[in-house]
């Protein structure tokens, strides 16, 4: 029998606010253990939470960017469970009145992954187990989170990966989170079940907890899919349970037994008041949502004739997209700008993080000036390229590196002189060409370009060289 995967995600995203959700301690990642703490976030007796306004605003923006309905009235609830990383023995979260409901994320194949809800809550501290001892650091305790809960609409590992990447891009784009999975600022719980293809009934699901890498999400889902299919095929039944993924063995294993089943005893937190958001406030927040990644890709392809791949590469990073749009403003061919970014500039930004932070010396206006010189026929591509390298090294404008004579171009006799010189100085290449190696001419053109400091017209030089040899 053929089976299909049915998966849903609960994604925790740490918000990029300055302070924690209920106190004024910093949310900065790292820091020595227990140095980002105060009586409130370590739950001393008598303290009270005070909700950070920015948390509500960030969560609403996340909801708007994922097509959610924003609730005018919501509230905070206590989720009671006792664990050493949770200093109050309850997590302040939202139960039956979340801030955002009924959204969706659209995948490239056109399918919509429905979002059930997005709610706000606090993160827990960190436990470190050493030789059986338990060390506890509460720096992360109280850092604001949103939990994005999808419906079980995901049908394959590919869709799952795209869903997570898409969420990541959206959250980064609107600036609510850096979504660094390796630092734990984005974590996924994945619900997986299987069913015969064609069936519309949901099978019993298992939940793989706390995944923090897209690669491992894929592997774990695949493993879990196969495990469940084999279990059913051999006459067994899938047991609803919580699993942990073991990446070194690529297996999943149960986290706790049934006897520890939790009963969270949710009830409204009496220390916090109702959250009320007017339609006007929601509209104001809507105005702060920028054009999103996939919307930009569409526009870059349609308006600027970029390839889908180039458009996506640029639009993926909000700062780079902004840079591209500013640098392209008023130039004849934005594609040239895109090529400079993807070619030379990307060579200097090796990691995803580098691209995300996009810390370069050259401004968009400087790049625009350079490209306009090409547009006006004042310099050629090669000179522009070498100039850009110098600009990127120094942060200085193109005018620092290009002289009037550079911009004057080469007259025909000068070009012919250089071409003759190329033929005379490279007998080997000339010989190769004569033997039929068409490519040999390229090295002769290269010689001309170098001698002319990029001012020569490469195509004209090639024609000329061929006629000199021929």
């Amino acid at each position, binding site marked *: 029998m053929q089976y299909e995967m049915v998966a849903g995600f609960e994604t925790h995203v740490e918000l990029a606010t300055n302070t924690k959700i209920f106190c004024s301690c910093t949310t900065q990642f790292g820091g020595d253990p227990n140095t980002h703490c105060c*009586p409130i976030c*370590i*739950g*001393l*007796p*008598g*303290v*009270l*939470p*005070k*909700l950070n306004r920015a948390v509500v605003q960030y969560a609403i923006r996340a909801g708007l960017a994922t097509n959610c309905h924003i609730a005018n009235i919501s509230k905070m609830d*206590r989720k*009671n469970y*006792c664990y*050493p990383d949770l*200093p*109050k*023995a*309850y997590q302040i979260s939202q139960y039956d009145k979340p801030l955002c409901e009924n959204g969706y994320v659209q995948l490239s194949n056109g399918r919509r992954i429905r979002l059930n809800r997005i709610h706000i809550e606090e993160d827990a501290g960190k436990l470190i187990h050493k030789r059986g001892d*338990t060390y*506890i650091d509460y720096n992360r305790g109280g850092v604001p989170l949103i939990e994005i809960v999808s419906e079980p609409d995901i049908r394959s590992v590919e869709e799952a990966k795209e869903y997570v990447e898409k969420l990541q891009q959206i959250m980064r784009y609107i600036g609510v989170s850096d979504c660094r999975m390796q630092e734990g600022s984005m974590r996924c719980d994945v619900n997986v079940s299987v069913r015969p293809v064609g069936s519309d009934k949901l099978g019993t699901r298992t939940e793989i907890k706390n995944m923090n890498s897209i690669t491992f999400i894929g592997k774990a889902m695949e493993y879990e899919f196969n495990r469940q299919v084999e279990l059913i095929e051999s006459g067994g039944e899938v047991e609803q349970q919580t699993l942990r993924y073991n990446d070194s063995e690529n297996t999943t294993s149960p986290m706790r037994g049934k006897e520890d089943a939790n*009963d969270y*005893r*949710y*009830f409204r937190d*009496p*220390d*916090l*008041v109702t959250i009320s958001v007017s339609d006007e406030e929601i509209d104001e927040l809507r105005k702060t949502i920028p054009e999103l990644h996939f919307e930009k890709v569409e526009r870059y392809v349609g308006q600027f004739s970029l390839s889908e791949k180039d458009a996506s590469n640029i639009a993926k990073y909000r700062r780079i997209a902004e840079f591209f749009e500013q640098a392209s403003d008023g130039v004849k061919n934005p594609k040239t700008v895109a090529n400079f970014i993807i070619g030379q500039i990307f060579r200097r930004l090796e990691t995803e993080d580098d691209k995300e932070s996009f810390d370069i010396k050259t401004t968009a206006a400087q790049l625009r000036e350079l490209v306009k010189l090409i547009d006006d026929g004042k310099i050629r591509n090669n000179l522009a390229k070498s100039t850009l390298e110098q600009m990127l090294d120094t942060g200085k404008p193109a005018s620092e590196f290009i002289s009037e004579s550079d911009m004057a171009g080469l007259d025909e006799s000068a070009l012919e002189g250089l071409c003759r010189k190329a033929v005379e100085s490279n007998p080997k290449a000339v010989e190769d060409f004569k033997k039929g190696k068409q490519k040999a001419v390229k090295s002769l053109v290269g010689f001309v370009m170098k001698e002319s400091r990029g001012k020569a017209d490469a195509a004209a030089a090639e024609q000329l060289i061929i006629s000199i040899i021929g």
Partner: protein
Amino acid sequence: MAEGMIKRLGSMLENKEISCTELTNTYLSAIESANGDLNAYIKVTPEAALDTAKAVDEKLARGEQLAPLEGIPMTLKDNISTKGIETTCCSKILEGYKPIYDATVWAELKKSNAVLLGKTNMDEFAMGSSCETSCFGGASNPHDIGRVAGGSSGGVASAVGGNIAAYGLGSDTGGSIRQPASFCGIVGLKPTYGSVSRYGLIAYASSFDQIGPITTTVEDASIVYDAISGYDAMDSTSQGRRGEPTVKTLKNDIKGMKIGVADEYLDGVSDEVRSVFEKACEVYRSLGAEIVRFKLPSLRYALPVYYILACAEASSNLGRYDGIRYGYRTANYKDVNEMVCKTRSEGFGAEVKRRILLGTYVLSAGYYDAYYKKAQNLRGSIVKAFKDAFETCDVILAPTVPMTAFKKGNAISDPIETYLTDICTVPVNIAGLPGVSIPCGFDGEGMPIGMQLIGDTFCESTILNAAWQYENAAGAEVFKPSAYGVKL
């Protein structure tokens, strides 16, 4: 009528009849001689008290004016956080815990040089009506040390009633200020929910808890309330005081004031309490007020509603005592979970455990709707019933407790019998209203009887005014000094 201790000591300091250091020493030695009998204080803080006294004396020497509570020796219930001073809620589980921050009320009083003599006894985590669930043993009633001071703020009431503190701050979740004030023959004000900051008050039931003064007179209560009420950004439920300071309207005429008396409050009160209460109504009539009898049927559900909701909140509030960050930790365990369970089992007393279990039960899957949710809806009905009542009357008058102080040891035997004694006090907490208990007479054995004036939210001025008028009219008849404490 007796002058309030705050007023009296304040003018003695201003007139240089006594220095603040002398005054503080007088109180400290009175504590030393009386506390063996009263067990009001569980911790005395002489050094800090004398340091503050010295600062006040220096201020006086410079000829500076003192703030109303400046230099007055006082006490705090042991659930109010005091930086660097052990704060235990009279529970073994908070053994050795020294807060690293001050409760907002204490931070405010400290700024005006209140002289903290020490921390006072209470029922463990404020759960009790006799002060006897304290891990330090209960506080005694200054009028008969064979009887309880009441609870849960029994220590504060015993100290103020026994003249070993000029005033004190307690907390009232279901009557914990008013009931011991009534038992000890003094004044206790439970303010409107939200008018006094809860920041730093160790929570029992968050939507009921409120800090308030226990004093010798209504005027003193008014002075303290004016000082401690106010908006606090640290408490999301804080709103502060509404209107001008309550002392300004304290002595207003109450002619024509409509005083409501609900029949339900008189169900089940003892004959002695009832007859003293009826006499008090007469006093009000003589002052020109109108007594309006009415019914509050939803009060029948007040007690179970209170116990369900308060215990639900408590079960969650008390989850944090796990032996990791502060307080007691068990000696032997095999893993973290066992450490937590053993710590809690050894650290909490029987009544606290009972309330945690009840609270967990009413919130647990399958029972939430029948208990927690239902009780929450009935809470709404009770809130509305009071709102309606205040459409027709200005204040409500009711007994504070159906009886006088019980003999020690009686409260512990049957928890439910004990819960029933809170019948007159819990409705105020359910609806978040202000209520002030004042002495109104004695039973046959000379034990004080109290009554309470209940107002609409943020109407402290109205009830304090009505209370002052009664106190002024009734005079010494309802007030009997205790044999204990300072004699000035």
